[in-house]
């Protein structure tokens, strides 16, 4: 969309550009602070996709696909689901029940390392799966229209 034709979007581009890294940073905060405050993998995944969607809306879908390729988005979704289910299988291998984080590190009863790292790993899985899935859905819709024309708004 960038080009001499759409020069009247210059304010939009200037305002959106510094916002995008802040949105991505906020997503990371929401993710890693999920143990202490509202938020977690799901919300963080959605917020990080919002940053990419904003980029796609302002600068065009093709530059966005060059920055975050669709093949990366869908691989990320699959990888996230594998991480989540993999933690469950890890617990199975360590001799516990599926997704039973207490057994992950073979610690003494009363230790919380397994719970802590299990939750972090699972949240990373949710983050990847949600971010990848949402971005794939957005690309699937947005990839079918070459460009959002001004009269469409």
């Amino acid at each position, binding site marked *: 969309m960038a080009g001499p034709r759409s020069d009247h979007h210059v304010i939009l581009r200037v305002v959106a550009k510094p916002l995008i890294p802040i949105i991505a940073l906020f997503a990371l905060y*929401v993710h890693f602070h*999920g*143990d*202490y*405050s*509202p*938020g*977690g993998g*799901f*919300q963080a995944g*959605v*917020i990080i996709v*919002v940053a990419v*969607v904003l980029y796609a*809306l302002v600068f065009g*879908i*093709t530059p966005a*696909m060059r920055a975050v*390729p*669709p*093949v990366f988005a*869908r691989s990320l*979704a*699959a990888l*996230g*689901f594998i991480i*989540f*289910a993999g933690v*469950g299988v890890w617990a199975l291998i360590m001799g516990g029940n*599926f*997704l039973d*984080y207490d057994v992950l590190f073979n610690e003494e009863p009363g230790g*919380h390392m397994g*719970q*802590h790292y*299990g*939750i972090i790993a*699972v*949240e990373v*899985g*949710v983050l990847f*799966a*949600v971010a*990848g*899935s*949402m971005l*794939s*859905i*957005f*690309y*699937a*819709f*947005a*990839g*079918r*229209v*070459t460009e*959002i024309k001004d009269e*469409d*708004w």
Partner: protein
Amino acid sequence: MIAGYSGADLAIALINVLLLGLLFVVGVAIARMRSLFAIVMLSGIYSLISATWFVALDAVDVAFTEAAVGAGISTALLLGAMLLTARTAKPEKGAMQIVPILVVLATGAMLVYATIDLPAFGDPDSPANTYVGTDYLERTPREIAVPNIVTAVLASYRGFDTLGETGVVFTAALAVILLLGFGERSLSATFNRKKDKK
């Protein structure tokens, strides 16, 4: 002063009335509109107001998700979907207009009737605040040692449910990809068609 309310309670009651009134107005506006772009924008506003209302009800986690998903990403996705179809919805014919309002009125009457049996908001003896809820509150510091109990319930106690939810999101993406294609291939196809026309 309105009977029964004073101070902070009155303020919260007024905020609730204001937010629910706004939700009602936006809902009526959505029902009466024909321009899909305006409807998409109004549904985003509806989500944002509901998120504010959830904060007033102390459900910050739900409010956060509603704001991020309802007002953020689904507005963008609906915009993308809207661009693939017509810009305005077709008006319904005469008799068909009466059916939805009857369904809405009947459902609304049933819901109002059901609220009579609901426990008061914040009632410590309500089913939501006894049994398993108190159990999680008691056991989380001892068993999980995570300050945010919502995270402990979501990721550990109900980890299986969350795995299923992640699977649902992943399946939704797969379904959209199967129906619409990956995006980049259809994008390059449209570009090539444009070049061929030139």
